[in-house]
């Protein structure tokens, strides 16, 4: 198949970027989107041109590295999928595909389609952990976790931290990400101990880093490659409000 690409090119974080047009022939419908970009880059290198920079790693939709805003959708067409699992058969022959980086003040563009998502790491450092003695694996029955809580915590733990929620949100809000991380730990006995402080610190860090606030549009949930629901945001709000009224900080 033959496609037309409209890709954001930006030399570095400080440069003023612009869209560059490419025409690509001989694209296989079974190629993944990432393979198609590799194919484009091979062509560009052969022609002595600058290849397009983009982030990718596992190609199994579990690492959260790929981060492309394709034709108005983070991670492109289809639901519950990351860019690496989008295949070219999702596009029509002759289609024009516009590829942009995640757009948010807190995710500055490093080069072309690559953004700096360190803000998520900073939020995690603020409280997305359990500070218990991590010695040997405890006995299986030492910490009893109910099936419902275990399933719910697992659902939240599916978050790969790709930032599609921020990219989809009209407010560039990281609330779904923080909600998933706070909920995952708050539901389990090991995480309950620090639940209050965690909710307060992670939300404070999220605000400090310049993410917007949640207005419950549900766009994050619709684009999340792991299908994490906004009911976790209600849980985060609950955790945060309770912590605010009870924690003396």
């Amino acid at each position, binding site marked *: 198949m033959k496609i037309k690409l*409209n890709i*954001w090119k930006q030399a570095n974080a400080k440069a003023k970027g612009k*869209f560059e047009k490419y025409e690509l022939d001989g694209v296989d419908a079974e190629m993944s989107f990432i393979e198609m970009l590799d194919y484009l880059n091979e062509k560009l290198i052969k022609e002595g041109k600058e290849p397009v920079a983009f982030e990718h790693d596992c190609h199994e939709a579990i690492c959260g590295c790929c981060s492309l*805003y394709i*034709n*108005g*959708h*983070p991670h492109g067409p289809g639901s519950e999928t990351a860019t690496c699992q989008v295949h070219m058969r999702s596009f029509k022959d002759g289609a024009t595909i*516009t590829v*942009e980086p995640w*757009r*948010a*003040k*807190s995710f500055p563009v490093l080069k072309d389609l690559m953004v700096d998502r360190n803000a998520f790491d900073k939020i995690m450092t603020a409280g997305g952990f359990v500070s218990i003695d991590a010695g040997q694996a405890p006995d299986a029955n030492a910490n009893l976790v109910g099936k419902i809580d275990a399933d719910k915590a697992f659902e939240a733990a599916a978050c790969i931290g790709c930032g599609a929620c921020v990219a*989809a949100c*009209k*407010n*560039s*809000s990281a*609330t779904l990400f923080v909600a998933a991380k706070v909920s995952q730990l708050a539901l389990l006995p090991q995480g309950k101990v620090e639940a209050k402080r965690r909710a*307060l610190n992670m*939300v*404070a860090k*999220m*605000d400090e880093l*310049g*993410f*917007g*606030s*949640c*207005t*419950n*549009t*549900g*766009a994050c949930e*619709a*684009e999340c490659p792991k299908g994490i*629901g*906004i*009911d976790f*945001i*209600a*849980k*985060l*709000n*609950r*955790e*945060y*409000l*309770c912590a*605010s*009224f009870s*924690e*003396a*900080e």
Partner: protein
Amino acid sequence: MSKFFTSSIGQKFFMSITGLFLMVFLKVHLILNSLLLFGDGELFNQAANFMSSNPIMKVVEPILALGFIVHIFYASFITLKNQMARPQKYKVANKTKASWASKNMYILGGLILIFLVIHLANFFWKVKFGTVAAISYDGGQTELHDVYGLVAGLFKGWWWYDALYIAGAIFLFLHLTHGFWSAFQTIGWDNDKWIGRLKVIAYIYAVIIAGGFAFIPLFFLIKYVV
């Protein structure tokens, strides 16, 4: 707790509780307005005069005004901050599925505010500062403001006011379809089961409130003009 007022969730919490308070007010307002539909206005005039002369209302009125002010203030502040979170916009506008109302709450709120100003000028101002004709139902012993006459006069005399009040109700409908369930979500009173239920209740509430308010000008048009 000191950070609560400036945190994103704290600010949304105030949006949410003022929103819930204003939704209770809308319900009371509609119940009283529904008296316009019965009889020749005596019932409504009695109720309207009771409400405007009641000492409790002297306390409730400023609280209500404060509810509006806090809601509008935080909405403006949050919207401005949210706009700043994405300095460079996308070339291809976001195509993610989300309700139109949820993405345009501030615009809808602004339209409702414009309507509210006109609405206050139409009725509240006139009743409060006394340019309303007097009416008596007991042979002149007690004189009441003829608020019914004021309402009926407006709705049967100027068709564009009927259109304006119906438009106001439509904006309110859209605002409530998102605002109602969203308020519960923000205070954390929601989960994967209740999210669907609350959205349904939001539509029912919005239909009753907006439909009720829109019916009043239509009622006067049918009663006096058609």
